[in-house]
Structure formats: structure tokens, C-alpha cells
């Protein structure tokens, strides 16, 4: 077997090391800690030339990261969950400065109640901040996506920061074989960072992120960010082609799995998509025509690619590993919106919520999704949001409530 056994966290750290970042401001949080530990060790030993600084919080960390990127430095940092939310205010500033750093988020569900295991309410809370978002399925994809993220972010047509997301536990602490890209090839893939609009020098003063105090310039500059994000779709395509040529692995904005003749399609993201693919194989072996569409790029939203993959299907199910209380699955809304004008739109759209707080996504749950989706397709009527929660889990929950409340069951 090629490569070496590596956790998603270590793969993320290697991504930063391979692109030869200049600066790493850091603040540890479970389950991201191994990333900053590895980078701290490498910076200390001289294996990396970067300056590593531990900050007092994620808010300071992102401020330092953005400020350093504004001087023209290549910057990497990483956080998770509450840390990402604490940094959220600064994320909007950094993207407004058009400072193209890369931030790794290791997904972990948000408090309260508090937990350590993943869902995507953390990273999707940063959906609208102007950072691009790439969500990875494997440890290899974590590393490769960081290389691609810098190339896309630093392109003059984009110049926006990027979040690369990986699931806590399911990738962060999971080791699997990862092929290490050759550092010389990485240099060919990623040219040196020379932004025209950034960089502070003596005798060349400029101000960044200035006050505009009027809607006309404000609208103009925010819209520029939107156009830059849309440009990232083309830039991603170019980066994917160049990456494939150098490293032999291909990543597109969405990934279709056994879609060719699929009647019903399950839409997923991140590490659980692997389990979804297994479920597709199981269903296919039983003669069901099902397939999977994995969304890899969440911002910019790859509407055309999604439309193309889902048009003409009988039914589409979106499995959201997040929950917007009072609304439902976040990605379901976006998938539904981009299908509205599609003449051949699926007969039924189904919304499922699963894996909240890292709850296991079982084979039986995936089977239930395919069954309910097929039925919805036959009826021509969508369903949801349906929370994936089994009778057995319900009984377990009642036991916990009894213990916590001192109540009779």
C-alpha cells in the first residue's frame, strides 16, 4: 500500500507544511489540537520556516492571521466549533480585506448542550462570511484540499480566504493511508504569493478595510466579494485539472457516485459520504437504482453542477448533518432553491437530518432514507425534515431523562 498512515489532523498539518506558510497563529481546541501541536513541533525543530505564535483566543488568532495575510504573508490557521464562532466577527473583516489565508475547521457540534463530536452547524455558521468553503471526505482529501485552497484563494480573480472543513473524530482522529505529495511538485502547483493589493512597506503606506459610511461604496465592495466567490468556480476547475496532472488525483466541486442511471439520489457532504457510498452499493446490489451526490464546495455554491447532477431524477434526498431550528436542514434549502427553475426537476425533494453531535449514521438509517425517498418519488410529494432517530435510541434517551430528573420512567 502506498503512502503512510495518518490522521486527518496530521494531514491538515502536512498541508500547511507543504505549502510553506510564513505564519501560523494558533489557539488549541478539541478536536483540532493535533494540528497546532504538529505545526508547533515542526516550527520549533526548524522543519518549517514559519513563525508560530500561540494567541490568547480564536478572536485574536483570526485577527493576527488576517493582519499577517494583509502584509503579504502566506498564513495558515485552524480551529473548531466554539472557536470558529468566537472568531466569526473577524472572519467577515478578513474576507473584506480580501486576505487569502486558509483556515482549517475541524467540525464539532456547538453548545449547548456541550459535546466534542461533529456536526456542521459550526462551519455552516460561517457560510455567509465571504470565506470559500471546501468540505473533505477523506484524510487524503484534507491534505490535497489545502494545497488547492491556497491556489484558488491566491488567484487574482478570487483573493478570498478559504475554510477547509474536516469532521472531528471521523477524520480528525482517524488514521488511513495518505499519499504525501512531493514538495517540489507542490512548488510547481502553487506559485509564490505575490498579491498586488496587499503588503505593507516603508514609503508605501496604504489603508485596508477603511470606513465607507455609505451604502453606495459598501454595496459595491461587498458585491465585488460575491463576484470573486463566483469566479472561484472556474478557478477551482483549473486548479483541479492542474492538480490532477501533477498528482494524479481529481477533485471537482461536486462528486457523483453511481449516478448514471440513478432514479433516486442522496445528497451528502463530508466524512459520512463514505458511509453513504457503501449504502448505495448495498442498495444497488438489491437492484435499486440509487446514487450519491457529494457536495465538496459549499461556497461558492456550485448551483450548475448540482442542477446538472439532479435534473431528471425521480426523487432527491438531502442528508443534512446540521439543524437550523425552526427551519430544518441548511443544505436542503440551498439544493431546493437551485432546482426551482429546472424544467426536469425531481418529483420529490426529501430532507433528512442525521449525525447531529456525531451520532452514528447507521446502515439501517441509510436504508430507511432510500426507502422513504423512493416512496416520496412514487407519490410525487417530498417529505421532511425527518430526524434520523431510532426507537432504540429513544428508549436510551428516556433512561437518561429518568437518571437526570430523578423521575419515574
Amino acid at each position, binding site marked *: *500500500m502506498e503512502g*503512510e*498512515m495518518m490522521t486527518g489532523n496530521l494531514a491538515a498539518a502536512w498541508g500547511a507544511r507543504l505549502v510553506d506558510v510564513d505564519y501560523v497563529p494558533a489557539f488549541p481546541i478539541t478536536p483540532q489540537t493535533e494540528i497546532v501541536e504538529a505545526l508547533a513541533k515542526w516550527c520549533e525543530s526548524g522543519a518549517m520556516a514559519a513563525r508560530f505564535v500561540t494567541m490568547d483566543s480564536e478572536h485574536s488568532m483570526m485577527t493576527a492571521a488576517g493582519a499577517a495575510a494583509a502584509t503579504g504573508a502566506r498564513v495558515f490557521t485552524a480551529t473548531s466549533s466554539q472557536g470558529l464562532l468566537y472568531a466569526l466577527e473577524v472572519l467577515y473583516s478578513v474576507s473584506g480585506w480580501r486576505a487569502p489565508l486558509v483556515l482549517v475547521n475541524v467540525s464539532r457540534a456547538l453548545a*449547548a*448542550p456541550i459535546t*466534542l463530536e461533529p456536526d456542521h452547524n459550526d462551519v455552516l455558521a460561517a457560510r455567509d462570511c465571504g470565506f470559500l468553503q471546501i468540505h473533505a471526505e477523506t484524510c487524503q482529501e484534507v491534505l490535497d484540499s489545502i494545497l488547492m485552497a491556497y491556489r484558488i484563494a491566491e488567484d487574482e480573480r478570487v483573493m478570498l480566504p478559504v475554510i477547509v472543513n474536516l469532521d472531528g*473524530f*471521523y477524520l480528525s*482522529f*482517524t*488514521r*488511513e*493511508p495518505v499519499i504525501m505529495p512531493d514538495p517540489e511538485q507542490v512548488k510547481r502547483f502553487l506559485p509564490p504569493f505575490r498579491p498586488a493589493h496587499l503588503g505593507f512597506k516603508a514609503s508605501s503606506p496604504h489603508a485596508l478595510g477603511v470606513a465607507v459610511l455609505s451604502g453606495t461604496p459598501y454595496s459595491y465592495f461587498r458585491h465585488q466579494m460575491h463576484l470573486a466567490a463566483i469566479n472561484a468556480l472556474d478557478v477551482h476547475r483549473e486548479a483541479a485539472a492542474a492538480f490532477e496532472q501533477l498528482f494524479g488525483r481529481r477533485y471537482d466541486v461536486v462528486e457523483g457516485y453511481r449516478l448514471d442511471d440513478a432514479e433516486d439520489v442522496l445528497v451528502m457532504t463530508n*466524512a*459520512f459520504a*463514505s*458511509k453513504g*457510498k*457503501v449504502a448505495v452499493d*448495498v442498495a444497488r446490489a438489491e437492484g435499486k437504482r440509487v446514487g450519491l451526490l457529494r457536495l465538496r464546495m459549499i461556497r461558492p455554491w456550485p448551483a450548475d453542477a448540482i442542477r446538472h447532477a439532479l435534473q431528471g431524477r425521480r426523487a432527491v434526498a438531502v442528508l443534512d448533518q446540521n439543524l437550523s431550528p425552526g427551519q430544518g436542514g441548511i443544505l436542503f434549502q440551498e439544493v431546493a432553491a437551485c432546482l426551482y427553475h429546472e424544467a426536469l426537476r425531481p418529483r420529490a425533494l426529501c430532507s433528512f437530518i442525521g449525525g447531529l453531535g456525531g451520532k*452514528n449514521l*447507521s*446502515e*439501517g*438509517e441509510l*436504508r*430507511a432514507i432510500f*426507502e422513504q425517498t423512493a416512496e416520496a418519488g412514487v407519490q410525487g410529494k417530498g417529505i421532511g425534515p*425527518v*430526524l*434520523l*432517530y*431510532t*426507537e*432504540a435510541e*429513544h428508549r436510551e*434517551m428516556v433512561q437518561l*431523562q429518568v*437518571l*437526570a*430528573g*430523578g*423521575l419515574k420512567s
Partner: protein
Amino acid sequence: MRAVRFHGRGGQGAKTASRILGTAAFLEGFVAQDSPIYGAERRGAPVAAFTRIAKDPIRERGVIVHPDLVVIADASLVQDPAARVLDGIDERTAVFVNTSLTAEQCQAQTSLPGRLTTLDLTDIALQQFGKRGAISALLGAVAGRLAGLHRESMSGAIARELADLGLAVPVIEHNQTIALQCYDAVRTVPLETGAAQPAASAQLQVPSYEPPTRGTARISAAANSILRETGGWRTFRPVLVPDKCNGCWLCFAYCPDGVISMTKDDRPVIDYAHCKGCQICVHECPTEALVAEREQEGAVAWKAK
């Protein structure tokens, strides 16, 4: 695919053992995947780790619901419902238990289903390393033998993983030697892979609205931590030698779990149902009136309710 689930207590090395197995399989040319699961890490608390070994890329992730092989680093975990050792085990599952009991004795005492095999790794570790926790290499080697991996790959994997933890070369070599002795000594049992039937469709039951007294994450039951007995976390128990005790109350003051109470004549009484065996009282006692005694299986004070 071979699916191996490890159960241990924080500090015993179940995670490292799962990595040793994964690396050994990888060195033999297999695709491997290993991952641990734990909450807020504590020494002695139940932890689990998973290793998958296959010829093709592995797309399963997270918990192993139907293991082909279960490796239990601490026999007391079998009785602890929170450890979920019994989940998905049937009569075809290969099960290794680190215990002084024979497989037959262990089966009779624990009513564990599956094809059992045992070895007293804790005793070997105590004799060889003088430490109770250091059994990761031994567990990994035993798991490797039962999973059908080669001796050489186990040895190589132990070297890599222990070096990764920063252990010195002589310590690593000592571990390799003893681990390979365990590899040779463990009685093998047949390993049946992929025996699990495809799962049926899950019976979903979407929760309905409940008043906030039940619908919010709050605990109103007073002092319910007493329900969670943690005595099974011990490998050693502190035992009082009454003649040596000077009644200074230091053990009472230092106990991090509040399981030591004092009698009217200033003698400590230890709540063995909840003492986790951290030995802080043994270390702090100025007169050596508290001594550590190894727990004997079948005679533990702790038992599941």
C-alpha cells in the same frame, strides 16, 4: 474486511494498540483504518478504538457495530454497561480478554458470548515493566496474532508506534520482545469475517415536543453521580494498615474524588464502589499507612447494578 474493536480504560493503551494493529496491517500491504472514540479523557474511564483491515479502500467510518474480533484490555469493562463491550457480539465473534482467568473460567463468570481466548497481560506487564498501564504493545501483538498478521509486521509496527510516542529505544526493544512472547503465547480462535447480515431498515421514531423540564439538557436529580460506580476503574486499591495511621487527615484532603471519609477516631474509610484507584492517597500518606494492593478478578468490590 476484518473489523477489530478494542475496549480499554484511559491510560491502558487501547488506542495505541489499535494503531499498532493498523500499522502492522498497512506494513503487510493491506489498507487499514484506525480510530479511537472517547469523551473528556480520564485515566480509567472506558475508551474504545477501532481498526479495520481490508484489501480495498475502506469506506466504513467510526464505530464498529459488528466486530469480527473484540480485544478487551480490562475484564471489569465487561460488566460496565457504559463501556458497551457486548454490543454486536455473537457466538461467532472472536473475543480476547486480558485476565488471569482461563477462557472457560472467564466465559462462565462473565457470560460473554463468542469464541474466547485469554492471557494475563497485566501480570506480564507488571513483572516485565513494573507498571500496570503499559500494555499497548502486548494488546496490539495479541490482536495481530488473532487477526492473522505476521510476527515481523507486529514487531515493526510496535517500533514505529512507540517511537511516535517518544519512548526510548531500549524501552521499545523490551516491549517488542515481551509483545512477541504474548503473540506466541495467546491461544488462537477462528476469525470469521463479514459474518454480519445486512441491517434491516431502521425503525425511526421522531421525538415529540416535551416540556423544558425534560426537553432541555439539565440535571435536577441531586447527587446522582453516586449511581455511576467507578470502582471498576481500579487496577490497584488503597488499603489501610490501621497500626501505622496517625490520623492526620491528609488522605481525606488529597482524595480528588471525595471517596475517603473519616471516622470519629480519625481513621479513613474508603468507598470502594467509587474509588478509581488513582493512588494519590497512597503517595501522600506520611506514615505509609495506605498501601496499594492489586485487584483480584472475581473478588472486586465493584459490580454492575
